């Protein structure tokens, strides 16, 4: 499954991989737009992600990619348009509520709980899963022990995806850079998401780490049957694993399609490299 490229099929609102055509899209953005004062950061953004799709969001610096992640997680409230998670509108919801609806993310500038051990970072992600009350915690009722034990086991299992279970007691801030990025992914997975938003997961990684990350993203998708959307500048990674790609420039989508289509799209080439005529300086 890993290397076979899926064909994209058209459904209402956009294209998704063929295998997901039978199920409704897990994430949908319709005519999404946001203004910061007079600046339109994102405009008329339409986007649809199939149930197990790996989607890519690329574009030059400042195109509005991270803004879109912030919109999808309701860190910003959109000025126009709407976002549907499994068909449910997220308008007016808090960020943590959107997370519990199934959207988890990582951050471009790593935001780990640095002073806490690796394991606790993952356990924080499981907030929604274990539901004992504070009274049960203070009295150390059996429900506390059971849920803590289950959560701990699940956290170690998630850490083992990236082979990090032996680091469980290390403070997250003292991990090497690549491990911190991986821990962010594990923490996001701990929230039991349906869509995983990865903001430049390969930033600062060397080629072999990037290749490993690619494998792991695929593995996560296959194992958890979730969709992944990633922002990335590393074209090897994007072209290697993304099934559908959207290219953003100046807050607007300029192209959508499979990696091959994007690679040969003149508009994309223009956005990244500039126009051919009068390009003497290049």
């Amino acid at each position, binding site marked *: 499954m890993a290397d076979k490229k899926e064909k994209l099929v058209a459904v209402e609102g956009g294209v998704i991989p063929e295998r997901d055509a039978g199920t409704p899209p897990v994430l949908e953005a319709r005519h999404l737009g946001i203004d910061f004062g007079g600046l339109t950061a994102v405009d008329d953004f339409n986007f649809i992600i199939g149930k197990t799709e790996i989607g890519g969001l690329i574009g030059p610096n400042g195109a509005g990619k991270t803004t879109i992640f912030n919109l999808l*997680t309701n860190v910003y409230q959109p000025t126009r348009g709407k976002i549907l998670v499994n068909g449910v509108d997220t308008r007016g919801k*808090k960020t*943590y509520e959107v*997370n519990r609806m199934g959207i988890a993310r990582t*951050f471009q500038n790593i935001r780990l709980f*640095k002073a806490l051990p690796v394991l606790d970072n993952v356990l924080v*992600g499981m907030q929604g899963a274990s539901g004992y009350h*504070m009274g049960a*915690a203070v009295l150390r009722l059996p429900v506390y022990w059971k849920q803590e034990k289950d959560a701990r086991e699940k956290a170690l299992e998630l850490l083992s995806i990236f082979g990090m279970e032996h680091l469980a007691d290390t403070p997250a801030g003292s991990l090497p850079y690549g491990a911190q990025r991986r821990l962010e992914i594990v923490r996001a997975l701990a929230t039991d998401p349906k869509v995983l938003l990865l903001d430049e997961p390969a930033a600062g990684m060397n080629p072999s780490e990037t290749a490993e990350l690619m494998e792991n993203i695929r593995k996560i998708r296959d194992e958890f049957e979730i969709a992944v959307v990633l922002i990335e500048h590393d074209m090897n990674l994007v072209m290697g694993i993304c099934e559908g790609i959207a290219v953003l420039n100046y807050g607007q989508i300029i192209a959508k399609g499979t990696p091959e289509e994007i690679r040969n799209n003149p508009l994309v080439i223009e956005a990244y490299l500039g126009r051919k005529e009068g390009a003497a300086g290049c």
Partner: protein
Amino acid sequence: MKQTVKRIPMPVRYLINTVLIALLVFGSTAYVNGGGVSGYITKVLMVIGINIILAVSLNVATGYLGQLPLGHAGFMAVGAYTGGIFLKAVNASELGGAGYAAAIAAALVLSGLVAAFFGIIIGVPALRLRGDYLAIITLGFGEIIRVVLTNIDDLLGFKLTYGASGLKRIPKITSYFNVLVCVVLTCLVIHLIMKSRHGRAILAIRENEIAAESCGVRTTYYKVMAFTLSAFFAGVAGCLYAGYLGSLQPTTFGFMKSIEILVMVVLGGMGSMLGSILSAITLTALPEALRAFEDYRMVAYSLVLVLVMIFKPTGLMGQYDFSLSRILEKLLNLGKKSKKEG
């Protein structure tokens, strides 16, 4: 490669700790009540206990949650006046046996709850915002409480607070045993909450609020919760203070009192319960030991703060917390390692 680390199972840990705490509480009470120390020392010990509760409770909001409340004395005042009025109303000193104990327990809980209620009122609007708003709002709150208590001598027509002349003839219910039990309970409850999913959520907010929220942590809820918890125990400490002194003056609960508590937390290390306890003991005992130089106490405070900030910005204990079991485990494993080598 796999290391077999000896761990002490949970029930044994709890047993060890319970036995030690019980020994501490009953043993030291027997010693103190049996005349082992002078009445003056007992009083100092009581004040130390009250200050420990104040410092440990403020540590929840400052060290664990990462906010900067400057009105802890305000919550203490609320608790003190609530406890004082309640104890006077039920005439606690005339009750005997079980009634007396029940009155004390009720006064402590009630003081805590009223302070916690104020905590929610202040916390809900203040903690929805990010940044330093809480410091300003709690600073204002503390001053408002003080000014209101100074200027109002009756509540809803009942002569209760007695304004600037102060609340007098409060039954002196506070004993060494009371204080010690409250200290143990405060530390225990806070510890148990911090070592649960709720505690982890609070720490996550301190570490990175944006990340915490996108991990599904209800940030506003937990911020208000931690702040309220902090206010609750400040109220309990206030009640003990009222029962210790027997009379209350609004001026006691000024801005300087809040700062005094904050200094204890910062000096001990924000986020370390052990640090709060140790510095509360030190900063209470030291002025008593240096009674002759009391005029310079505030100078010493400022100096100590400045020096700690220069040489150990994380406080004396940093975020280290004491765990007897951890030390025992280390010793166990140490013994094993040397056996292997030997």
